């Protein structure tokens, strides 16, 4: 199948970088950005109408972890942006905002469900860090 020939509508051509160097890039809100895998509206590129997958948390634990993942993702996206635009004041402020939200979400998760990093393991016996579930294990 050749999507370039079969269905021109499904493919948005990539726009040259120069046109997108706006000082204040347009951003998706955190939930949408995380769902799509892209924080930046100008470079978002859909594929055959895929890309809109709602994430339905199946448990309280997953909901709490999603918060960490979502804010962590937004902070990471801004981090990559700042690597190539280190003087953007608005984005630096946004980075601070989402780094803080990530830390708070992490703390809330860890208080309830155990450590995400070994450094935050408590003095409980057995050592909390060792206990699953591990990220690759299927969880309901």
């Amino acid at each position, binding site marked *: 199948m050749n999507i370039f020939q079969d269905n021109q509508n499904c493919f948005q051509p990539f726009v040259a*970088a120069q046109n997108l160097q706006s000082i204040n890039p347009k951003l998706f809100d955190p939930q949408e950005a995380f769902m799509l*895998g892209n924080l930046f509206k100008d470079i978002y590129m859909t594929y055959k109408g895929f890309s809109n997958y709602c994430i339905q948390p199946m448990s309280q634990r997953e909901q709490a972890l999603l918060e960490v993942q979502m804010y*962590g993702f937004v902070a990471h996206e801004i981090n*990559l942006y700042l690597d190539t635009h280190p003087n953007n004041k608005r984005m630096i402020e946004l980075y601070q905002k989402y780094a803080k939200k990530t830390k708070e979400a992490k703390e809330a998760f860890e208080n309830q469900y155990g450590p995400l990093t070994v450094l935050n393991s408590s003095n409980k016996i057995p050592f909390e860090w060792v206990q699953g579930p591990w990220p*690759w294990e299927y969880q*309901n």
Partner: protein
Amino acid sequence: MWIYDKKLQYPIHIKNKDMRMAKFIITQFGGANGELGASLRYLTQRYTMPDDKGKALLTDIGTEELGHMEMISTMVYQLTKDASLDEIKAAGLESNYTEHGMSLYPVDSNGVPFTVQYFAVTGDPVADMAENLSAEQKARATYEHLMNLTDDPDLLGPLSFLRQREIVHYQRFKELYDEYVKKYYQPDFNQQC
């Protein structure tokens, strides 16, 4: 130094076993355009970047790619978990089973093992960035091929997410590429008349 976070970048919960898709998706672990090659390429290239921007970007994207390798591994693991010998045979995975049991092993969808040739490091920042631009596009194309091969939303969600990451990485590398070309090969353009 890296510190492990006990979470995936994006959630993966695959309900249905699918040996066939596992055989295809593993190429994004051990194939030429896979996440293992991408992470190691970027984390190797960063030492010879000419400025802090390059060192930062390759460190940060290289680190994210390690997380993508974990996502791909997770998908293959969940897709093949508790597969019976009959299911392994039906998917034509007996050879893989013979060599590696049910463990993960970096191969492409043809079973060709990972090779360090995929690193592609030249020490030339413009050449390395151009390599990375192409690598991101090839990975995007591979994700689209994988999306064409399934209609399971449990797979399409993470595949679509990973595909979009290639687009963002492409953009960041492009910004650096343009800057390096101007800086090192077109310095006249920057001079004031």
